[in-house]
């Protein structure tokens, strides 16, 4: 029960081998073991969305997954998405629209927004509000975030033409 278990996975494209306690959740594994502190912890019970990461192309709450469950998985964190440039246009839209204040929710918000934009080319404001409704933001009141995601969707459609 309390003996460490060895796991092997890819995080942001890099292979990671580690020995972890079975009770360690993915958020703490990323933050404390890999020092990927961009994944934030807000509620520790899957409500606030601050720890949203991508596991095998699906967004998940890292606080609701145990590290041992991601054996052989591919995990993408905000650091990975930033370095690859995948969301640079979305980040630029957030900057231009001041869609973040304290920034604590922002990595999770960007993860969730990119997930929507990959699924839906032309989301309405209601669609965006609905998709982000699992991510708390206490600073902005959401309006600017919705604007930034909408602007990114419009720009991506424009460049896809």
């Amino acid at each position, binding site marked *: 029960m309390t003996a460490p278990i060895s796991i092997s996975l890819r995080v942001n494209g890099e292979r990671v081998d580690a020995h972890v*306690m079975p*009770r360690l959740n993915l958020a703490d594994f990323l*933050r*404390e073991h890999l020092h*990927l*502190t*961009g*994944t*934030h*912890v*807000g*509620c*520790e*019970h899957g*409500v*606030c969305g*601050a720890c949203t990461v991508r596991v095998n192309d699906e967004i998940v709450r890292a606080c609701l997954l145990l590290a041992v469950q991601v054996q052989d998985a591919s995990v993408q*964190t*905000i*650091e990975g998405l*930033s*370095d690859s440039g995948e969301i640079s246009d979305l*980040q630029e839209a*957030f*900057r*231009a*629209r*001041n869609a*973040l*204040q*304290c*920034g*604590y*929710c*922002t*990595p999770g918000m*960007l993860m969730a927004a990119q997930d929507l934009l990959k699924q839906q080319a032309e989301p309405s*404001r209601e669609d*965006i*509000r*609905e998709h*982000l*409704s*699992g*991510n*708390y*933001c*206490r*600073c*902005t*009141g*959401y*309006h*600017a*975030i*919705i*604007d930034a995601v909408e602007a990114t969707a419009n720009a991506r459609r424009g460049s896809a033409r």
Partner: protein
Amino acid sequence: MTEASAKQEGLSVLDRPNSYIGKTVPRPNLDRLMQGRGAYVSDMELPRMAHVVFLRSPYAHARILNIDASSAKQMPGVVAVVTGKELADVITPWVGVLSHLKGLKSAPQHAIAIDRVCWQGEAVAAIVATSRALAEDAAERVDVTYEELDTVTDMCTALDPATPVIHASLGDNLAFERLHNAGEVDQAFAGSDEIVEADFVFGRHTGVTLEPRAVVADWNPAEARLTIYQGTQAPHMVQNIAALHLGLEERQVRVVCKDVGGSFGIKVHIYADEMATYALSKLLKRPIKFVADRVESFNTDIHARDHHCKGKVGVKRDGTIMAFEIDDLTGIGPYSMYPRTSAIEANQVVNLVGGPYITKNYRARARVVFQNKNVMCQYRAVGHPIACSVTEGLVDLAAMRIGMDPVDIRRRNLIADDAYPCGSPSGLRFERLSHHASLAKLLEMMDYDRLRAEQAQLRKRGIHRGIGIASFIEVTNPSAAFYGVGGAKISSQDGVAVRLDAQGSVICQTSITEQGQGSESLTAQIVGSVLGVSMDRVRVILGDTDNTPYGGGTWASRGAGIGGEAALQAAKVLRKNILDVAAAILQATPAELDIVSNAVVNMGDGAPRIELKELSRIVYFRPDTLPPGIQPELMATRHFVPRDYPFAFTNGVQASWLEVDTETGFIKLLKHWVVEDCGTIINPQLVNEQIRGGVVQGLGAALFEKCIYDERGQLTNANMADYLVPMSGEMPDIDVGHVVSPTAESELGAKGAGEAGTAGAAAAVSNAVNDALKPFGAIITEIPITPQIVLTALGKI
């Protein structure tokens, strides 16, 4: 989106080519937050750092009979288990009172409870271990024997003779009482055609910063210095308090504040567990980290509001408001918070009720009582939502009674825009407000008449929509009148130092802090504009008591107005110093020269004369080439504090458009509008986002947020699933407009904007709900307005 803004008046020093003032420019340094490369305290690790977990009382009121930590101390990774008694050798207790709040009393509070706990969540022992998880494991092995005591939970009976007194030494449960009587109130009520009374109830809620409170304290015995890394709004205040209670000089304490995951007033106080963390570091001689978990946050972050306020308004049939009267009661938990005290909110309520209106007849009583619940203190828009909801609720009820439109009664009674300077019945002084211009702009933005017509049409189809309007005033730019005069060492002045570096860029150190509002941006915009330097060449340093001038920080909507003015004045001096040097180099006079786009140019024809980079090179590396007698000073420091007015009042008005489902009781927010006047606008986008964020916190209080206690003082919804906050799906788009009345107290003319949104949002929603329910004769004066409250008001449950 409406970004309407009245044209600003010319400001000589700022109204320059390439000025950033009044322009939307992106905040510097957002990349690190967007890329997950921020530096929040919860991310921090230091060598030899240990983690503290606090064992907290499960009872609201109990005597601690015994603490047995012997088994816990044997657990893996445990460094120490420390009780309140042991920690009291390192840190002294405190009493949260201020001398200008006459009669305010509180009991000594310890970093960790010693023989008695007074609320569910008060710490009884600290468990320090090499990881948070191991400390939590050990905490389960600490055996505490309690004797449960009678609890005081209902503030309405806290003063009854039969109710136990929480702190026997204080004699009763009354922490503070303020009475106010202005004008001829009885006569005014006697002369009123109608008198309307209502009981307003405000739920206890809290800030829910997404990053919980976090601190790393690092006592280095070899240096005899404590470094505190903390998400705080007021680093110098933390420095002062930590030094005072640890028996240190302030020079022995450094407070560093990097990125902060939300604050909203939650992180402007000194908490017992933070004090304990500082003390543990001193005791154990190593860095100690404390990060509250979410349950701890709900049980120990200050709560706010929780007021019962009886209100009364007298009105003539022609709509003239004759008098206001209130009787406010609030419960603050077992201790007045330190060092800002827990009487400020009630005091603000007395100050602000009736504030936008002409009548001088005003009577008020506010009582602040102790209870066995979590501590309560200042949270965003302190007192404003209470005062605004009571005032605007009464105004709407009066209008309803005499059959007048809510807009008309406001037009008739709001202080005229040309009546300033003037005073309020509670003794506030207004320099220059714009209630009527703001209301006119709001009505235009929302197309009031069209909306009323739409409402009438929809009513015929059984769709019940409401329009709610709320005018408000906001306290900003507080002078020493807020805390300093009461004896608290909380600075009301701020300082900024600017210097030209060796490559012609600007380093700027400011005592205001950043929690996402845009302190860094507004400082860079002001300094860049005054100096003629592009913003990307201005680096702003904040949040470090070793490396910034002394000052108050960022709270009470003071950063732009006070810290911004200090930045402006410092930049003016540096500009003069640069031009003096340039004149000497160029054999010109300073009056012939200007600085534009990082270069010294001719004032007359704008021709470039010398780049700042080259000027810096000469000053720093070839001063031998300067004319004799010239000693360049490429660094300047200035401080600012308002002296003419105790507070720079701002004003504004909000409107809510919503739909009430009379079958389910659910309320759908359709749209929200705000017009606000914060004086000179440095960055319209940042102001608008402060307003929007503030509105949504106010909407949370209006519809969702409430800390629900049972009769034994147990907080029953201390988690994010059960405590509801506004989510994106429920929030409306929010249009923001501005009227601009700069304060003459500073050259910048900026007032604050951080709390305007929160001040009036709940009042606008409450008035809109009552407007929607008008056909049913249902009146709701309680927030949060849950479906249950709506259905109860409708007589359906």
